[in-house]
């Protein structure tokens, strides 16, 4: 196992590829920072679109680091799948947990003091009213 063939030249790990990957990573980071400043100065692109671009570019950067620097792109399929397939869990984790957080936010909004309730109220006679604006004493 330890007898690694050192004379074999990996085309993939040539210094040219390494520097190319570096320039790609640096370029993407510069674009990200440029967009952030553009947004600060002009409000364009909008926050939602901007965040989508940031996340997309982050994934691209991650791809280049893993595929080139960590050399995974040049390993055999067995290893690639063994490492990448478990990461599919993240798709579900992200969707499920962020949706849960969003749902909590909506509940907070609905139940915050002074907010009119969107669902049917209890009979007002019980407490003699007092569910009006700015009254959070019942909570």
């Amino acid at each position, binding site marked *: 196992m330890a007898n690694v063939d050192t004379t074999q030249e990996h085309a993939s790990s*040539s210094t040219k590829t390494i520097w190319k990957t570096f320039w790609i990573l640096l370029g993407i980071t510069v674009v990200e920072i440029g967009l952030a400043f553009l947004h600060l100065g002009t409000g364009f692109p909008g926050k939602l679109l901007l965040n989508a671009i940031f996340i997309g570019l982050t994934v691209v950067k991650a791809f280049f*680091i893993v595929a080139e620097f960590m050399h995974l792109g040049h390993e055999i399929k067995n290893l690639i799948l063994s490492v990448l397939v478990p990461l599919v869990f993240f798709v579900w984790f992200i969707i499920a947990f962020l949706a849960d957080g969003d749902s909590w936010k909506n509940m907070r909004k609905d139940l915050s003091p002074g907010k009119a309730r969107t669902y049917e109220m209890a009979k007002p006679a019980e407490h003699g009213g007092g569910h009006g604006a700015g009254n959070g004493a019942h909570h």
Partner: protein
Amino acid sequence: MDTTVTAKKKWWAGGYSPFNVSYGKLMMWYFLLSDAFTFGALLISYGTVRFSSLSWPDPNHVFHSFPFMGDANLPLVFVSLMTFILIMSSVTMVLAVHAGHHRDRKAVIKWLIWTIIGGAAFLGCQAWEWTHLYHSGAWWSLNPFANADGTAATNSNFTDFFFTITGFHGLHVTSGVILNIVILLNVLNGTYEKRGHYEMVEKVGLYWHFVDLVWVFVFTCFYLL
């Protein structure tokens, strides 16, 4: 190790690694996979709490300082420098691995030293940033930053997550620097020359690139979004 890859090769027939890598390298990959889930859990819980909050501090307001620049408003500039340092150190690490393939001992030493310097520089930057934030009243359980919508902070979720996640990442950088120093000493002692290969540099290199990979996500989640 059998490096000839043919389409018809029966990888699971036994006799050689079905992953075409050594045991140590495979285990490094699996360790990094588990570490990815640890960082993923931290970042997703951060995202969950942020999604559940009515408002959150604006990173461009919180992270706007640069050493020796006083009160100048420079959002993103310092963290961009930190990102650049870490990408750069990843490049020097991959160059060290590359030199190891060619058994170029001198080049391995040179690039490992640059990688260690890069890692130390990153840690120095982080120490400055933490100190600066601490002096502006931020720490675990202390959140002095107003929300983006102008309301005052009602909890310390933002600072708790920031210090926990960047701290956990910084701890990884620290152990990476220590590992790099250990293998540098081994290279200087000629350990890998005697062994006949520099695979240990590759394994530590995988770890180092992973630390860079995590930073890419931390950078996006805390400073850009």
